[in-house]
Protein backbone atom coordinates (compact mmCIF):
# COMPACT_ATOMS: atom_id res chain seq x y z
CA UNK A 1 0.00 0.00 0.00
CA UNK A 2 3.01 2.27 0.23
CA UNK A 3 2.52 3.50 -3.30
CA UNK A 4 -1.12 4.40 -2.81
CA UNK A 5 -2.14 8.01 -2.29
CA UNK A 6 -5.41 9.80 -2.82
CA UNK A 7 -6.02 11.58 -6.07
CA UNK A 8 -6.91 15.27 -6.32
CA UNK A 9 -10.55 16.12 -6.10
CA UNK A 10 -12.50 15.52 -9.29
CA UNK A 11 -10.67 12.23 -9.92
CA UNK A 12 -11.16 11.15 -6.34
CA UNK A 13 -14.79 10.37 -7.16
CA UNK A 14 -13.75 7.78 -9.75
CA UNK A 15 -11.08 6.43 -7.43
CA UNK A 16 -13.40 6.07 -4.46
CA UNK A 17 -16.09 4.53 -6.64
CA UNK A 18 -13.60 1.91 -7.83
CA UNK A 19 -12.37 1.24 -4.32
CA UNK A 20 -15.89 0.83 -3.03
CA UNK A 21 -16.82 -1.43 -5.93
CA UNK A 22 -13.82 -3.68 -5.28
CA UNK A 23 -14.55 -3.77 -1.59
CA UNK A 24 -18.18 -4.65 -2.17
CA UNK A 25 -17.51 -7.22 -4.87
CA UNK A 26 -14.78 -9.03 -2.93
CA UNK A 27 -16.66 -8.88 0.36
CA UNK A 28 -19.85 -9.88 -1.41
CA UNK A 29 -18.05 -12.85 -2.97
CA UNK A 30 -17.06 -14.12 0.45
CA UNK A 31 -20.49 -13.45 1.97
CA UNK A 32 -22.55 -14.88 -0.87
CA UNK A 33 -20.12 -17.76 -1.31
CA UNK A 34 -20.74 -18.86 2.27
CA UNK A 35 -24.44 -18.19 1.98
CA UNK A 36 -24.73 -20.18 -1.24
CA UNK A 37 -22.69 -23.01 0.27
CA UNK A 38 -25.06 -23.26 3.22
CA UNK A 39 -28.24 -22.86 1.22
CA UNK A 40 -27.81 -25.79 -1.16
CA UNK A 41 -28.87 -29.40 -1.67
CA UNK A 42 -26.70 -32.05 -0.05
CA UNK A 43 -23.43 -33.14 -1.60
CA UNK A 44 -20.15 -31.25 -1.72
CA UNK A 45 -20.21 -30.83 -5.47
CA UNK A 46 -23.70 -29.35 -5.38
CA UNK A 47 -22.71 -27.08 -2.52
CA UNK A 48 -19.73 -25.77 -4.48
CA UNK A 49 -21.90 -25.22 -7.57
CA UNK A 50 -24.48 -23.35 -5.52
CA UNK A 51 -21.77 -21.25 -3.88
CA UNK A 52 -20.31 -20.35 -7.26
CA UNK A 53 -23.71 -19.51 -8.75
CA UNK A 54 -24.53 -17.33 -5.77
CA UNK A 55 -21.23 -15.45 -6.14
CA UNK A 56 -21.73 -15.05 -9.87
CA UNK A 57 -25.20 -13.60 -9.53
CA UNK A 58 -25.07 -11.59 -6.33
CA UNK A 59 -21.50 -10.35 -5.79
CA UNK A 60 -21.65 -7.80 -8.64
CA UNK A 61 -24.90 -6.44 -7.21
CA UNK A 62 -23.27 -5.92 -3.82
CA UNK A 63 -20.32 -4.29 -5.56
CA UNK A 64 -22.64 -2.02 -7.49
CA UNK A 65 -24.45 -0.92 -4.35
CA UNK A 66 -21.14 -0.17 -2.66
CA UNK A 67 -19.98 1.71 -5.76
CA UNK A 68 -23.07 3.92 -5.67
CA UNK A 69 -22.44 4.65 -2.01
CA UNK A 70 -18.75 5.42 -2.55
CA UNK A 71 -19.29 7.53 -5.64
CA UNK A 72 -22.08 9.60 -4.08
CA UNK A 73 -20.09 10.04 -0.86
CA UNK A 74 -17.04 11.21 -2.73
CA UNK A 75 -19.06 13.53 -4.98
CA UNK A 76 -20.61 15.23 -1.94
CA UNK A 77 -17.19 15.36 -0.26
CA UNK A 78 -15.64 17.07 -3.28
CA UNK A 79 -18.54 19.49 -3.57
CA UNK A 80 -18.09 20.44 0.10
CA UNK A 81 -14.36 20.92 -0.42
CA UNK A 82 -15.21 23.23 -3.31
CA UNK A 83 -17.83 25.18 -1.35
CA UNK A 84 -16.08 25.42 2.02
CA UNK A 85 -12.54 25.76 0.60
CA UNK A 86 -11.11 23.41 3.20
CA UNK A 87 -10.72 19.70 3.88
CA UNK A 88 -11.49 18.47 7.36
CA UNK A 89 -13.24 15.53 9.07
CA UNK A 90 -16.55 17.41 9.11
CA UNK A 91 -16.68 17.15 5.32
CA UNK A 92 -16.53 13.37 5.47
CA UNK A 93 -18.98 13.08 8.33
CA UNK A 94 -21.51 15.37 6.68
CA UNK A 95 -21.20 13.69 3.32
CA UNK A 96 -21.59 10.28 4.97
CA UNK A 97 -24.81 11.40 6.61
CA UNK A 98 -26.08 13.05 3.41
CA UNK A 99 -25.27 9.96 1.36
CA UNK A 100 -27.19 7.78 3.76
CA UNK A 101 -30.15 10.15 3.62
CA UNK A 102 -30.15 10.43 -0.19
CA UNK A 103 -29.95 6.70 -0.76
CA UNK A 104 -32.89 6.08 1.58
CA UNK A 105 -35.03 8.80 0.06
CA UNK A 106 -37.56 6.33 -1.36
CA UNK A 107 -38.16 4.70 2.01
CA UNK A 108 -39.67 7.62 3.88
CA UNK A 109 -38.49 10.23 6.36
CA UNK A 110 -37.84 7.84 9.23
CA UNK A 111 -35.59 5.63 7.16
CA UNK A 112 -33.78 8.69 5.83
CA UNK A 113 -33.03 9.96 9.33
CA UNK A 114 -31.97 6.50 10.47
CA UNK A 115 -29.54 5.86 7.66
CA UNK A 116 -28.22 9.44 7.87
CA UNK A 117 -27.35 8.82 11.52
CA UNK A 118 -25.77 5.48 10.66
CA UNK A 119 -23.72 7.04 7.85
CA UNK A 120 -22.58 9.96 9.95
CA UNK A 121 -21.58 7.81 12.93
CA UNK A 122 -19.75 5.36 10.67
CA UNK A 123 -17.75 8.09 8.98
CA UNK A 124 -17.06 9.80 12.29
CA UNK A 125 -15.62 6.54 13.61
CA UNK A 126 -13.47 6.10 10.53
CA UNK A 127 -12.19 9.68 10.71
CA UNK A 128 -11.53 9.34 14.44
CA UNK A 129 -9.50 6.20 13.95
CA UNK A 130 -7.57 7.94 11.18
CA UNK A 131 -6.80 10.95 13.39
CA UNK A 132 -5.67 8.70 16.26
CA UNK A 133 -3.46 6.69 13.92
CA UNK A 134 -1.90 9.85 12.47
CA UNK A 135 -1.24 11.21 15.94
CA UNK A 136 0.48 8.04 17.09
CA UNK A 137 2.59 7.70 13.99
CA UNK A 138 3.47 11.41 14.04
CA UNK A 139 5.25 11.05 17.39
CA UNK A 140 8.08 9.24 15.65
CA UNK A 141 8.71 12.15 13.33
CA UNK A 142 8.59 14.94 15.91
CA UNK A 143 11.72 17.02 15.22
CA UNK A 144 11.95 18.32 18.80
CA UNK A 145 11.95 14.77 20.11
CA UNK A 146 14.68 13.72 17.72
CA UNK A 147 16.88 16.69 18.60
CA UNK A 148 16.57 15.98 22.30
CA UNK A 149 17.75 12.41 21.82
CA UNK A 150 20.52 13.12 19.36
CA UNK A 151 22.20 15.96 21.23
CA UNK A 152 25.27 14.28 22.77
CA UNK A 153 25.38 16.67 25.72
CA UNK A 154 21.99 15.35 26.88
CA UNK A 155 23.19 11.77 27.07
CA UNK A 156 24.44 10.38 30.38
CA UNK A 157 28.15 10.11 30.89
CA UNK A 158 29.50 6.85 29.57
CA UNK A 159 31.08 4.52 32.11
CA UNK A 160 34.26 3.08 30.68
CA UNK A 161 36.41 0.30 32.02
CA UNK A 162 38.94 2.93 33.08
CA UNK A 163 36.51 4.45 35.54
CA UNK A 164 34.71 7.71 35.00
CA UNK A 165 37.62 9.50 33.38
CA UNK A 166 36.98 11.24 30.04
CA UNK A 167 38.38 9.56 26.98
CA UNK A 168 40.40 11.44 24.41
CA UNK A 169 40.26 9.86 20.98
Amino acid at each position, binding site marked *: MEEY*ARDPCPWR*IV*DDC*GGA*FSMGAIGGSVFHGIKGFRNAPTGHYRRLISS*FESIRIRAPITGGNF*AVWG*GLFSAIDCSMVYVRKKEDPWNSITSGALTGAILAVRNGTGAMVGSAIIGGVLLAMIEGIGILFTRFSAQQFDPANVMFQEDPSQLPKKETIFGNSPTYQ
Partner: protein
Amino acid sequence: MDQANKRRGFFSSFAPPQAPPSATTTVDVPATPTVPAPGLVSPYLNFDPAYITPDTGSDFIFPEGASRQRGRFELAFSQIGGCVFAGAAFGGVNGLYSGFLETKELTGAAKRTQLLNFITKKGASSAQSLGVIALMYSAIGVILSLSRGTEDELNTMTAGTCTGLLYKSSAGWKKCVRGGLVGFSLAAVYCIYTSKDRLKTILSKD
Protein backbone atom coordinates in the same frame (compact mmCIF):
# COMPACT_ATOMS: atom_id res chain seq x y z
CA MET B 1 32.29 20.96 15.52
CA ASP B 2 31.06 23.41 18.12
CA GLN B 3 27.71 22.77 19.68
CA ALA B 4 26.05 26.11 18.92
CA ASN B 5 26.68 25.64 15.26
CA LYS B 6 25.18 22.18 15.26
CA ARG B 7 22.08 23.12 17.13
CA ARG B 8 21.31 25.94 14.76
CA GLY B 9 20.50 23.40 12.06
CA PHE B 10 17.16 22.33 13.47
CA PHE B 11 15.47 25.58 14.40
CA SER B 12 17.42 27.87 12.18
CA SER B 13 14.39 29.99 11.35
CA PHE B 14 13.57 30.54 15.04
CA ALA B 15 17.06 31.19 16.32
CA PRO B 16 18.35 34.74 16.47
CA PRO B 17 20.87 35.54 13.77
CA GLN B 18 24.30 34.56 14.94
CA ALA B 19 27.69 35.60 13.73
CA PRO B 20 29.15 33.12 11.26
CA PRO B 21 31.53 30.70 12.88
CA SER B 22 35.11 31.81 12.84
CA ALA B 23 37.33 30.59 10.07
CA THR B 24 39.49 28.60 12.41
CA THR B 25 36.97 25.78 12.85
CA THR B 26 37.51 22.70 10.75
CA VAL B 27 34.17 23.14 8.96
CA ASP B 28 35.30 26.24 7.17
CA VAL B 29 38.20 24.66 5.33
CA PRO B 30 37.71 25.44 1.62
CA ALA B 31 36.63 22.61 -0.60
CA THR B 32 39.53 22.95 -3.03
CA PRO B 33 43.13 23.07 -1.88
CA THR B 34 44.34 26.65 -1.78
CA VAL B 35 47.83 27.93 -2.46
CA PRO B 36 49.07 28.37 1.11
CA ALA B 37 47.92 24.93 2.27
CA PRO B 38 47.95 22.64 -0.74
CA GLY B 39 47.38 19.39 1.10
CA LEU B 40 44.52 20.52 3.34
CA VAL B 41 41.07 19.58 1.95
CA SER B 42 37.80 19.47 3.81
CA PRO B 43 37.50 15.97 5.25
CA TYR B 44 33.99 15.66 3.88
CA LEU B 45 35.24 16.11 0.33
CA ASN B 46 38.43 14.13 0.60
CA PHE B 47 37.36 10.99 -1.28
CA ASP B 48 37.49 9.57 -4.73
CA PRO B 49 34.78 11.23 -6.88
CA ALA B 50 34.42 8.02 -8.88
CA TYR B 51 32.27 6.73 -6.02
CA ILE B 52 29.47 9.19 -6.74
CA THR B 53 29.63 9.07 -10.52
CA PRO B 54 30.18 5.48 -11.52
CA ASP B 55 30.53 5.04 -15.25
CA THR B 56 27.77 2.46 -15.54
CA GLY B 57 25.34 5.05 -16.84
CA SER B 58 22.61 6.94 -15.05
CA ASP B 59 20.41 4.94 -12.74
CA PHE B 60 17.30 7.00 -12.17
CA ILE B 61 16.21 7.99 -15.65
CA PHE B 62 13.46 5.81 -17.02
CA PRO B 63 14.16 4.28 -20.41
CA GLU B 64 12.23 5.60 -23.36
CA GLY B 65 9.07 3.73 -24.21
CA ALA B 66 8.70 2.40 -20.68
CA SER B 67 5.24 0.90 -20.54
CA ARG B 68 4.10 2.35 -17.25
CA GLN B 69 5.46 4.66 -14.61
CA ARG B 70 2.91 4.17 -11.87
CA GLY B 71 2.40 0.87 -10.13
CA ARG B 72 -0.52 -1.37 -10.88
CA PHE B 73 -2.08 -1.21 -7.45
CA GLU B 74 -2.06 2.56 -7.52
CA LEU B 75 -3.94 2.58 -10.81
CA ALA B 76 -6.29 -0.28 -10.02
CA PHE B 77 -9.01 1.61 -8.14
CA SER B 78 -9.13 4.42 -10.67
CA GLN B 79 -9.42 1.91 -13.49
CA ILE B 80 -12.20 0.01 -11.77
CA GLY B 81 -14.05 3.20 -10.96
CA GLY B 82 -13.62 4.46 -14.51
CA CYS B 83 -15.00 1.19 -15.85
CA VAL B 84 -17.99 1.38 -13.49
CA PHE B 85 -18.70 4.96 -14.59
CA ALA B 86 -18.28 4.11 -18.28
CA GLY B 87 -20.57 1.10 -17.91
CA ALA B 88 -23.19 3.17 -16.14
CA ALA B 89 -23.08 5.87 -18.82
CA PHE B 90 -23.20 3.37 -21.68
CA GLY B 91 -25.99 1.38 -20.05
CA GLY B 92 -27.96 4.52 -19.28
CA VAL B 93 -27.85 5.68 -22.90
CA ASN B 94 -28.63 2.19 -24.10
CA GLY B 95 -31.55 1.96 -21.68
CA LEU B 96 -32.90 5.33 -22.80
CA TYR B 97 -32.79 4.19 -26.43
CA SER B 98 -34.40 0.83 -25.87
CA GLY B 99 -36.89 2.40 -23.46
CA PHE B 100 -38.07 4.79 -26.17
CA LEU B 101 -38.43 1.86 -28.56
CA GLU B 102 -40.38 -0.23 -26.05
CA THR B 103 -42.73 2.45 -24.69
CA LYS B 104 -44.08 3.93 -27.91
CA GLU B 105 -47.71 3.34 -26.98
CA LEU B 106 -47.45 4.70 -23.41
CA THR B 107 -47.92 8.33 -22.38
CA GLY B 108 -47.51 10.50 -19.32
CA ALA B 109 -46.40 9.20 -15.94
CA ALA B 110 -46.41 5.56 -17.03
CA LYS B 111 -44.00 6.31 -19.86
CA ARG B 112 -41.74 8.35 -17.60
CA THR B 113 -41.58 5.62 -14.97
CA GLN B 114 -40.92 2.97 -17.59
CA LEU B 115 -38.11 5.04 -19.13
CA LEU B 116 -36.51 5.61 -15.72
CA ASN B 117 -36.72 1.91 -14.98
CA PHE B 118 -35.07 1.05 -18.28
CA ILE B 119 -32.26 3.56 -17.72
CA THR B 120 -31.50 2.53 -14.14
CA LYS B 121 -31.70 -1.22 -14.71
CA LYS B 122 -29.62 -1.29 -17.87
CA GLY B 123 -27.15 1.20 -16.44
CA ALA B 124 -26.71 -0.79 -13.24
CA SER B 125 -26.29 -4.11 -15.00
CA SER B 126 -23.70 -2.91 -17.50
CA ALA B 127 -21.85 -0.97 -14.79
CA GLN B 128 -21.73 -4.15 -12.73
CA SER B 129 -20.43 -6.32 -15.54
CA LEU B 130 -17.79 -3.83 -16.69
CA GLY B 131 -16.74 -3.24 -13.10
CA VAL B 132 -16.41 -6.95 -12.44
CA ILE B 133 -14.28 -7.35 -15.57
CA ALA B 134 -12.05 -4.46 -14.48
CA LEU B 135 -11.84 -5.88 -10.97
CA MET B 136 -10.80 -9.32 -12.24
CA TYR B 137 -8.20 -7.81 -14.57
CA SER B 138 -6.76 -5.56 -11.89
CA ALA B 139 -6.67 -8.27 -9.24
CA ILE B 140 -4.95 -10.77 -11.55
CA GLY B 141 -2.55 -8.06 -12.77
CA VAL B 142 -1.62 -6.97 -9.24
CA ILE B 143 -1.11 -10.56 -8.10
CA LEU B 144 1.04 -11.32 -11.16
CA SER B 145 3.20 -8.22 -10.86
CA LEU B 146 3.68 -8.76 -7.13
CA SER B 147 4.56 -12.43 -7.49
CA ARG B 148 6.89 -11.99 -10.46
CA GLY B 149 8.40 -8.78 -9.16
CA THR B 150 8.36 -7.18 -12.59
CA GLU B 151 5.95 -5.12 -14.61
CA ASP B 152 5.86 -5.92 -18.30
CA GLU B 153 3.68 -6.90 -21.24
CA LEU B 154 3.50 -10.55 -20.19
CA ASN B 155 1.56 -9.52 -17.10
CA THR B 156 -0.92 -7.55 -19.18
CA MET B 157 -1.44 -10.37 -21.68
CA THR B 158 -1.82 -13.04 -18.99
CA ALA B 159 -4.20 -10.89 -16.95
CA GLY B 160 -6.32 -10.11 -20.01
CA THR B 161 -6.56 -13.75 -21.09
CA CYS B 162 -7.31 -15.00 -17.57
CA THR B 163 -9.98 -12.33 -17.15
CA GLY B 164 -11.73 -13.43 -20.32
CA LEU B 165 -11.56 -17.10 -19.30
CA LEU B 166 -12.76 -16.40 -15.77
CA TYR B 167 -15.59 -14.07 -16.74
CA LYS B 168 -17.06 -16.58 -19.17
CA SER B 169 -16.16 -19.67 -17.13
CA SER B 170 -19.76 -20.40 -16.21
CA ALA B 171 -21.12 -20.26 -19.76
CA GLY B 172 -19.70 -23.49 -21.15
CA TRP B 173 -16.38 -24.43 -22.75
CA LYS B 174 -16.92 -22.77 -26.11
CA LYS B 175 -17.90 -19.40 -24.66
CA CYS B 176 -15.15 -19.64 -22.08
CA VAL B 177 -12.51 -20.14 -24.78
CA ARG B 178 -14.05 -17.37 -26.84
CA GLY B 179 -13.90 -15.03 -23.83
CA GLY B 180 -10.26 -15.92 -23.33
CA LEU B 181 -9.52 -15.17 -26.97
CA VAL B 182 -11.28 -11.82 -26.75
CA GLY B 183 -9.31 -10.94 -23.62
CA PHE B 184 -6.06 -12.04 -25.23
CA SER B 185 -6.63 -9.98 -28.37
CA LEU B 186 -7.66 -6.87 -26.42
CA ALA B 187 -4.56 -7.18 -24.24
CA ALA B 188 -2.40 -7.69 -27.33
CA VAL B 189 -3.82 -4.59 -29.01
CA TYR B 190 -3.22 -2.60 -25.83
CA CYS B 191 0.36 -3.86 -25.53
CA ILE B 192 1.14 -3.03 -29.17
CA TYR B 193 -0.34 0.42 -28.72
CA THR B 194 1.56 1.24 -25.51
CA SER B 195 4.93 -0.10 -26.64
CA LYS B 196 4.91 1.00 -30.26
CA ASP B 197 8.06 3.08 -29.75
CA ARG B 198 10.01 0.05 -28.67
CA LEU B 199 8.54 -2.00 -31.52
CA LYS B 200 9.66 0.68 -33.96
CA THR B 201 13.23 0.55 -32.73
CA ILE B 202 13.23 -3.25 -32.86
CA LEU B 203 11.85 -3.29 -36.41
CA SER B 204 14.22 -0.59 -37.65
CA LYS B 205 17.24 -2.51 -36.36
CA ASP B 206 16.61 -5.49 -38.61
